[in-house]
């Protein structure tokens, strides 16, 4: 057994939301296997990784248990020994490779540093070893990458550097903490394949931490499910995913949206509510001393949304989907083209026309933690719109409490501040705020992307209910094909600022015309896997 964690308990500081970050967790990672650790945010998955690496923050302390790496108890060894073990016997890759790499050192030097510290190789031997490793993790043109700085590389390439760095000393254990969460799906698929291959080749034991069951299905040999610091279920991947025993696992798996499209297009006779014509946005980069760089974020985008329809815009980061949403919401002005609402152009609207338009188009943003002002009560946030449009204070607050009930929160909570709410609850508040002005078109810009899968399911359900009740038109921006498959009638696929494919959701998923769309669907993690929930639904 490469890594064996026995009855590990890590205590939270006094005043935390529970007594222990993790309690009584036992876990084995044999050589040559990938052990996935799944759980929602706050379940303590990263605490386990940090305990193993000896990187726990000062406020957390392991109070009981053992962590044995090849027989050596990591909780007992001196910090000097631990420092040697890190790198040589165990290594870690992180979620965000940009922050894990030193921005002022070239990539090659950073990997070389490890060899310099842990081996006695000479300079030329070290360099050839690094280049060899770069080739191994399939970085193109290793010599160029060796001299490149982190910001000059793409996210996927940076993560490959991290992997090269982690594996160059051939550690027995690799800990991967959400290594693909910040990456686009196609890149994610490549990185997962790479980790899998390297692991097979070298027989490394891998502890893989993720919140995404798609990723689990893709990569895991064994799965352990963590709930609020306690291990609720553990077993071979197929078993846990196919026939979960613990109700919590069952609930999590049931919340994973399937890639099976659910909705049909709405009838063609409905009037078009939103139409864009040749919508383009060019961002100008560089200052008056630097070289001018123009970025075409959106290029000649034509979309049409019928009244009461849900149109999904999907694409990877940088595809321009959010730019389009923001232009429709008039948060930024288009460089060219027009946005029409019910046949009336919004682009030139000023003064009264613009205000009226603001009322009719509302947005729910991605990050529920940052889209509410931390210094204002949620009631003030919801009441703000009506107050801006001339409602009396009393009317606005009555409206706010109605909306709180509509999004299934207690109206009594209006006086609370955002930090007293969970992510899902905050997103409900944001939805209430958007609804406060009786909009006709609701734009959800990655509105469920930052949420845990079970919360995500609830919010999606809520959005659907509200759409039905209030006959809203929904423009749904997402990078997650699973989510899109659940909620959209039609889908627009964007790449590099252009619309590459458009059609009813079933058609796009089942018979994609464009190679890019096919690649996207192909890359969706866990695509080929039928989860327990999907089976019961089918």
């Amino acid at each position: 057994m490469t890594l064996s964690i026995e009855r590990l308990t890590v205590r939270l500081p006094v005043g935390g939301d529970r007594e222990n970050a993790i309690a009584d967790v036992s876990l084995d990672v044999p050589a040559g296997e990938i052990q996935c650790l799944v759980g929602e945010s706050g379940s303590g998955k990263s605490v386990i990784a940090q305990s193993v690496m000896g990187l726990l923050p000062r406020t957390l302390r392991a109070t009981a248990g053992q962590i044995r790496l090849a027989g050596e108890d990591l909780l007992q060894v001196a910090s000097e020994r631990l420092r040697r073990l890190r790198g040589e016997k165990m290594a870690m890759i992180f979620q965000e490779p940009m922050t894990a790499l030193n921005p002022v050192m070239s990539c090659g030097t950073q990997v070389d540093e490890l060899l310099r510290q842990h081996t006695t190789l000479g300079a030329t031997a070290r360099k050839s070893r690094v280049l060899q490793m770069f080739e191994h993790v399939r970085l193109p043109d290793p010599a160029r990458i060796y001299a490149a700085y982190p910001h000059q590389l793409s996210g996927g390439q940076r993560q490959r550097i991290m992997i090269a760095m982690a594996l160059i000393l051939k550690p027995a254990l690799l800990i991967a903490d959400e290594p693909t969460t910040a990456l686009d799906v196609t890149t994610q698929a490549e990185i997962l394949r790479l980790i899998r291959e390297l692991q097979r080749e070298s027989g490394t034991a891998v502890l893989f931490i993720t919140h995404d069951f798609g990723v689990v299905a893709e990569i895991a040999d064994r799965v352990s499910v963590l709930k609020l610091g306690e291990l609720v279920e553990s077993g071979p991947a197929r078993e846990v995913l196919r026939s979960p025993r613990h109700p919590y696992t069952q609930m999590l798996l049931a919340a994973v949206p399937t890639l099976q499209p659910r909705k049909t297009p709405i009838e063609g006779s409905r009037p078009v509510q939103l139409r864009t014509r040749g919508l383009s946005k060019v961002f100008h980069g560089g200052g008056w001393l630097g070289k001018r760089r123009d970025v075409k974020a959106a290029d000649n985008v034509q979309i049409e949304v019928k009244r009461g329809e849900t149109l999904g815009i999907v694409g990877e980061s940088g595809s321009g989907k959010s730019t389009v949403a923001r232009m429709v919401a008039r948060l930024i002005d288009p460089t060219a083209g027009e946005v029409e609402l019910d046949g009336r152009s919004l682009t030139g609207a000023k003064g009264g026309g613009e205000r009226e338009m603001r009322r009719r188009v509302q947005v729910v943003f991605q990050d529920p933690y940052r889209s509410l002002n931390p210094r204002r009560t949620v009631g003030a946030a919801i009441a703000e719109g009506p107050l801006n449009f001339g409602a009396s204070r009393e009317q606005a607050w009555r409206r706010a409490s109605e909306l709180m009930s509509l999004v299934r929160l207690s109206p009594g909570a209006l006086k609370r501040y955002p930090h007293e709410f969970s992510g899902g609850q905050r997103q409900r508040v944001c939805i209430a705020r958007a609804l406060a002005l009786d909009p006709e078109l609701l734009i959800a810009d990655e509105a469920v992307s930052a949420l845990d899968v079970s919360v995500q399911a609830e919010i999606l359900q809520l959005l659907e209910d509200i759409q039905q009740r209030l006959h809203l038109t929904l423009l749904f921006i997402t990078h997650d094909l699973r989510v899109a498959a659940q909620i959209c009638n039609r889908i627009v696929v964007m790449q590099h600022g252009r619309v590459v494919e458009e059609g009813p959701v079933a058609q796009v998923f089942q018979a994609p015309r464009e190679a890019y769309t096919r690649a996207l669907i192909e890359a969706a993690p866990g695509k080929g896997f039928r989860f327990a929930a999907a089976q019961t639904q089918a």
Partner: protein
Amino acid sequence: MSEPAATVAEPAEPFLDAPPREVARKLLRNPAVLVGGAVLALLLLIAVLAPWLGTVDPTMLDPGNRDLLPGVAGEVTTLTGETFAHTFWMGTDSYGRDIYSRVLFGGRVSLIVGVAVALLSLAIGMTIGLCAGYIRGLDSVVMRIMDGLMAIPGILLAIALVAMWRASLFTVVVAITIPEIPRVTRLVRSLVLTIREEPYVEAARSVGTPTAAMLYRHVLPNTLAPLIVQGTYICALAILVEASLSFLGVGLPTDIPTWGNIMAEGRLQFQQFPHNVLFPGAFLALTVLAVNMLGDGLRDTLDPRFNERGVRR
């Protein structure tokens, strides 16, 4: 919206911007805030209560009591001819003025200057910074002017300004404030530039919040914490600059006792009678130290960047 909510509560009591009590509790647990605040409160109390703390007229000349050492007991004769016993705790200067009385009354000037400069420069700098940061077109013009102002060393600018006007408490405060404004403006502007990109500002924009309300409701409250911290540093600096100006003889007129004035006059005799410089100097150092400690404590508690390193919630 047609659907009535299931349970409609009474309209919630609109207390929109209640200051979270948590912050106050956290502040009181910070030792730097406590010690700095306590020392400052004590100094303030001393300055306010100066007339009742066994002092005599700080400007009264008394040739009979020239150059007394600290702790000497003697007599004071007022202009009206009254004579009473008085212990010169801090000695007297070469004009026979009681240093103890002068230092206590001088504290009033220092604290008034410190607080007034801090408030004034924060208010003006904040207004300019908010506008420059939020209104794109204004930014480059305003900030170039501020850059220009910052290119002049603060104390030289203050000396020039006081020299231009007649020296008085008001002109000294204004002269110290002006060089501080660009610093506050820069800070506020940089804060506004980040805050304006926050999703909650964008969200407020999408519900039609007008610019003025946006600045007041969303941007301003989120710049306050760093500003309060900056305010304490400005206060400490202003106290030092006022003392320097007085010391150089370009500050407040010599008939007003300030720590700087007392030290300036004591400078000539420093070798024989160091107490003329040491006592006001010690008070000055203590005040600045207390204000800075308070500022550090406030920064650690209020500034979110420091906040996050501590225990979360």
